[in-house]
């Protein structure tokens, strides 16, 4: 369909000509597999949360910030989409920076502990920071479970 025709139809229906991917119910919706740049709103939201205020917090309060604010931002995305490894890496980079250096990128310093150790639950000797790829898997498995359950219910009734 040509552009003129599209514009004409849009005029008839009184709407605008859009393009894929667009945001539908809070998630990016596209015709093809989503690219890393389609997750930009998510990453922007995380970056916005890492405001300068976290510079004045202690380690423990920054851990709290990471655990309860930043780690839970991608949850809605993860319930229905498999986050690409690059996106998880970017989010991890922000979380590491926030935890060890307080979102101040110019500040030098090293991470006190390996990220794998930090990502263990608190009862297992870690800091309870959520492992995003594992969490993603766990949440997506829910969809698979629903699918199987539904099939058996239909079979029985």
């Amino acid at each position, binding site marked *: 369909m040509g552009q003129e025709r599209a514009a004409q139809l849009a005029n008839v229906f009184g709407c605008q000509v859009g393009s894929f991917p667009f945001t539908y119910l809070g998630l990016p919706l596209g015709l093809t597999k989503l690219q890393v740049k389609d997750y930009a709103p998510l990453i922007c939201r995380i970056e916005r949360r890492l405001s300068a205020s976290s510079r004045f917090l*202690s*380690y*423990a*309060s920054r*851990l*709290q910030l990471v655990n309860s604010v930043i780690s839970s931002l991608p949850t809605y995305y993860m319930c229905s989409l498999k986050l690409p490894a690059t996106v998880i890496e970017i989010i991890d980079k922000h979380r590491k920076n926030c935890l060890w250096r307080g979102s101040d990128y110019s500040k030098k310093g*090293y991470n*006190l*502990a390996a990220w794998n*150790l930090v990502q*263990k*639950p*608190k*009862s*297992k*000797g870690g*800091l309870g920071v*959520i*492992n995003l790829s*594992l*969490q993603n*898997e*766990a*949440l997506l*498995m*829910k969809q*698979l*479970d629903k699918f199987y359950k539904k099939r*058996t219910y239909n079979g*029985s009734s």
Partner: protein
Amino acid sequence: MKYRGVAVCTPNKGDTLSFWDDLINGNIYSSTLPHLFHYAKNSKSSFWKLRTTNDLLGCFNLPMSRQAHNEFLLLQHELEQFQPVTNDSKDEWVFIWGQSKYSSSRYYQHHFANEIPHPAFTWMWKSKCVPKIKFFTWPVLNDRLNTRSMLKRRHKFLEEGYNCALCHDNREEIIEHLLFSCPFTATRWFALGIYWREDGNIFERLHAAKQRFPLPFLHGSGHDWCLVHME
């Protein structure tokens, strides 16, 4: 598939589960009987099919190797032993953590189920001191505290040397020295009435001190660690 790793089936009729790939009675047959699996004609056949067939040998490509044959006899024995509760009822699916309902948090926790850390971590997170001190204790228990010896381990050059800043004994500032054997720290511990063992690693010391100290432990000590940390 990962879903199959966490869902356990108690087969009754056995027609909803794949014999080779699903977790049945604690094992996945394609990995416990690898040689025999190699000879299977239909790698997707259900449990029910294999159990009710008259010609079990006909399900495999012949001839098979000696190892595979041994596994075949084992399988034949196991299938004869198998007694379903009721023949016609549906198979029961239970997740590996013991619930029939899927829960993503249980899946997440299951990943870490094999790790058994020292109980000191639980004491520490459950203690009543402020989070700041808990966070200080965490690198102590993991040997990740930012001491001068840590800087040395990371090959960072320090002009004033790597010795303890609190005493003049020319001892390197490692965690054991800084928190237990340094004279400055020892006076603080003495004031609190906590006595540490001379030897052993940090967990053994903590355990011994916890048994000896009458009050709920890791409550006051947290504050003292903070005190040491500040000065």
